[in-house]
C-alpha cells in the first residue's frame, strides 16, 4: 500500500513534469526579467465576458488540476484541503488530474470542466482559443495578498487583463553534496564547463526543456551568441547549447525525471551535483543526505502555475469559490508543502512557518526575478526577433534525443 502510494505520487510527479514542458500552440513571452509589452504575445484574445458578481452556488464544481494540487484525502488521509472547501461552500468538488498540458487543453475544450490549473505552456493557448474567461480579481477574496510579482505576467494576463489567479511557482536549482563538492559552486559552470571535475557523478533533468538551462548559461558566459531568452534560440544558438550538453553528457551519471530517483542517487553518491527542485533537496536533507541547493549567479529556469476559469463553465460561482478558496493562506500552505513549491499567497508563510518560506523564497522578488519560467519554444522568436526563425519544441526534442545518443 505504501509502495503503491509512493509510486502513484512519483508517477504523478513524473507526468506532471513531463507535461509542464509540452508543446504549446501560441507564443508566450518567457522570462520574468523581460517586461510584458501590450500585444507582445502576438494575438488578440476573443471577447469572452467576465463575471461581474457572484450568484448562488451551483452545488458542485468540476476541477481539472495537476496531480497534487487538489487532494481530497484519498491518497493520504492527512492531505486533504478539498473536503473543507466542500463543507465551507456546499460545492461538491469533482477533481480530475491531468498528466500533460496537452491533456489539460483537450479536456477543457470538451466543456465539462470549470477550473483548470494551467502552466505557462498551456495558459496562453487557452486564452487565445477563447476557452478560458478573464478573471474578475475583485471576486477573489485574498487576491490582494498574492505576491505582486506574480500578477499581470505575460503567462497569466493579456493587455493588463488577468486571465487567472497565480497559484505557485518554483525554480530549478543547482544541488550538490557538501561533503564531496568543494569548494561550494556558485555557477552553473560546475555542471557545464567544469563538469569533468565530477566525472560520472553529474546529473541533469531528462527533458528537452533542459536545453534552456544550457542556453541560460551560454547567455551569461558567451554574449557573442546573442541569446536574449533561453526559450528563443535560432539554429546557431541551439547548436551551441547542444554541443555544450554533449560535452556535459560525458560526465553525466544519469538523467532524472522522477524526483525520488534523484533523491536516491544523491543519497548513494551516484550523483553529487546537478539540477534539482527545492522539494528534492528537502526530501534528501530529510534523509540526512548532506546536500545543499543554490540559485547560481546566472539565474535559473522554473515554473509558474495559474488557476483559470473555463469560458463555458457550468458552475461559475462554485468555480470562483474554488479559486478564492485555493488561494487562501491555509490551502496554499498545504498545497505548497505537499507539492514542494512557493505558494503565490505570501500569507501562507504564517502557517507553513518562516523556515519553509525562507527555503522556498516565497516573498523573495529578487529570487523570482532570476527565474526564466518554462515556456514552449516556437518558431516565432519569443525574444521579439523577426529577422530569423527560432527552433521549435519538435527540434528541441530531436536535439535532446541526439544529445543522449
Amino acid at each position, binding site marked *: 500500500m505504501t*509502495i503503491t502510494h509512493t509510486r502513484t505520487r512519483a508517477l504523478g510527479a513524473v507526468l506532471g513534469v513531463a507535461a509542464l514542458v509540452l508543446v504549446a*500552440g501560441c507564443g508566450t513571452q518567457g522570462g520574468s526579467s523581460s517586461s510584458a509589452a501590450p500585444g507582445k504575445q502576438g494575438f488578440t484574445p476573443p471577447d469572452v465576458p467576465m463575471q461581474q458578481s457572484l450568484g448562488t452556488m451551483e452545488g458542485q464544481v468540476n476541477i481539472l488540476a495537476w496531480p497534487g494540487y487538489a487532494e481530497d484525502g484519498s491518497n493520504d488521509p492527512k492531505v486533504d484541503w478539498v473536503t473543507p472547501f466542500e463543507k465551507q461552500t456546499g460545492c461538491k468538488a469533482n477533481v480530475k488530474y491531468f498528466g500533460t498540458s496537452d491533456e489539460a487543453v483537450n479536456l477543457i475544450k470538451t466543456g465539462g470542466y470549470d477550473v483548470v490549473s494551467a502552466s505557462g505552456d498551456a495558459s496562453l493557448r487557452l486564452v487565445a482559443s477563447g476557452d478560458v474567461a478573464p478573471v474578475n480579481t475583485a471576486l477573489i477574496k485574498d487576491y490582494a495578498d498574492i505576491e505582486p510579482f506574480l500578477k499581470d505576467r505575460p503567462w497569466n494576463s493579456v493587455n493588463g487583463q488577468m486571465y487567472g489567479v497565480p497559484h505557485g511557482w518554483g525554480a530549478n536549482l543547482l544541488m550538490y553534496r557538501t561533503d564531496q563538492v568543494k569548494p561550494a559552486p556558485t555557477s552553473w559552470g560546475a555542471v557545464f564547463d567544469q563538469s569533468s571535475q565530477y566525472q560520472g557523478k553529474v546529473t541533469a533533468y531528462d527533458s528537452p526543456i533542459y536545453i534552456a538551462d544550457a542556453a541560460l548559461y551560454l547567455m551569461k558566459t558567451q554574449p557573442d551568441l546573442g541569446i536574449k531568452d533561453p526559450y528563443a534560440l535560432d539554429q546557431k544558438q541551439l547548436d551551441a547549447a547542444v554541443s555544450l550538453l554533449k560535452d556535459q553528457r560525458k560526465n553525466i*551519471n544519469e538523467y532524472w525525471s522522477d524526483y525520488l530517483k534523484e533523491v536516491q542517487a544523491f543519497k548513494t553518491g551516484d550523483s553529487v551535483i546537478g539540477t534539482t527542485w527545492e522539494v528534492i533537496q528537502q526530501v534528501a536533507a530529510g534523509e540526512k543526505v548532506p546536500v545543499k541547493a543554490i540559485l547560481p549567479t546566472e539565474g535559473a529556469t522554473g515554473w509558474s502555475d495559474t488557476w483559470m476559469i473555463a469560458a463555458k463553465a457550468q458552475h461559475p460561482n462554485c468555480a470562483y469559490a474554488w479559486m478564492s478558496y485555493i488561494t487562501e493562506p491555509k490551502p496554499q500552505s498545504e498545497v505548497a508543502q505537499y507539492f514542494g513549491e512557493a505558494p503565490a499567497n505570501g500569507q501562507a508563510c504564517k502557517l507553513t512557518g518562516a523556515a519553509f518560506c525562507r527555503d522556498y523564497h516565497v516573498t523573495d522578488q529578487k529570487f523570482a526575478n532570476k527565474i526564466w519560467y518554462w515556456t514552449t519554444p516556437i518558431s516565432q522568436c519569443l525574444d521579439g526577433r523577426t529577422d530569423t526563425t527560432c527552433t521549435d519544441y*519538435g527540434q528541441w*526534442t530531436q536535439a535532446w534525443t*541526439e544529445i543522449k545518443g
Partner: protein
Amino acid sequence: MVDSTATADPAHETPPARGSLLGRSSGLRTALLLLPPMLWLGVAYLAALAALFVTSLWTQNDFTAAIERIWTFDNYRQLWEIPVYRTIAFRTIGIAALVTVIDALLAFPIALYMAKVASHRAQRLLVIAVLMPLWASYLVKAYAWRGMVSQGGLIDWIGKPFGLHSPGYGLVATTITLAYLWLPYMILPIYAGLERVPDSLFEASGDLGAGSFTTLRRIVLPIAFPAVVAGSIFTFSLSMGDYIAVTIVGGKTQLLGNVIYGQLVTANNQPLAAALSIIPLAAIILYLLAMRRTGALENV
C-alpha cells in the same frame, strides 16, 4: 468476419427458430462463438496496428502540432537519415537479443531440473518460486535493482573482497535487470515443454549407450527447442518494448521505447512516434519469420 455477421443476422430476425437453428448448425455455433474474439483481434489489435502505420505516413504542422493528413515518407526518411535513430535501434535490438540469450542459458538448466530431476513436491515449490516474482510489481523489482547496482549497494558490497565494483547505472545494469524481469517467461515454456517429454526417451537413450551429455544434446535439446523459441519470443519482444527499466537503471542510455515516448508525449509528434514504433514491430516480425523457418513454431 463478414460471413459470421451475415449468418448472425437471420438468427436475430427469427428469434423463435434460433434455438433449433443453433442446434442444427454447428457451423453457426462456431461462428457465433468466434465472433467476439475475432472482433477483438480484428478491431482492437490489427486495426490499431493499421492505424499506427497510416499515422506514420502523415505529417505534423510545426506551429499548431496538429496532424496533417498529407501522405509522405518523410518520417521514414528521417529515421533513415538521422544516424542517432539507427544507433538506438541497433542498441535496442542488441540488448533484446542479449537478454534473450542470457535468459535461455539461465532458464534451461532450471527448467530441466524442475521437469525431470526434482521430486513432485519440490517441483511444485519450484513452480511457485518461479511464479512468485510475477506477483510483485514491475516497478518494485526495477527499483530494487537500482538499489543493488548503486554505489555501495549490494553488488558493490559483495564484490569488494574480490576487488570488483558495481557496473553502475548503464547498459550492463539494464541488461541484468531485463534478464531478471523476463526470466520466468523463459522458464515456464521450457518447463512445460520438457515435462511433456516421456521419461522413457531418456531411458532409451541411456540403454543405447549415450552418456548424459549426449542425451542432452541429441534428445533433450531438439525436443526443447520449440519451447525455448516460445520463451525467446516473450523475452525478445518484451525487451524490445521496454522503456521503464532503462530509465530506472540505465543511467544516461536510451532505448527505442524512450525515443518513441519522447516523440509521442513530450514533442506530441504522433506521426514520427508511429514511424519509430514500426522499427520494433518489424524487428519482432522478422524474428518470428526467422523462427518459423527453423520449424519451431509448428510444434509449440
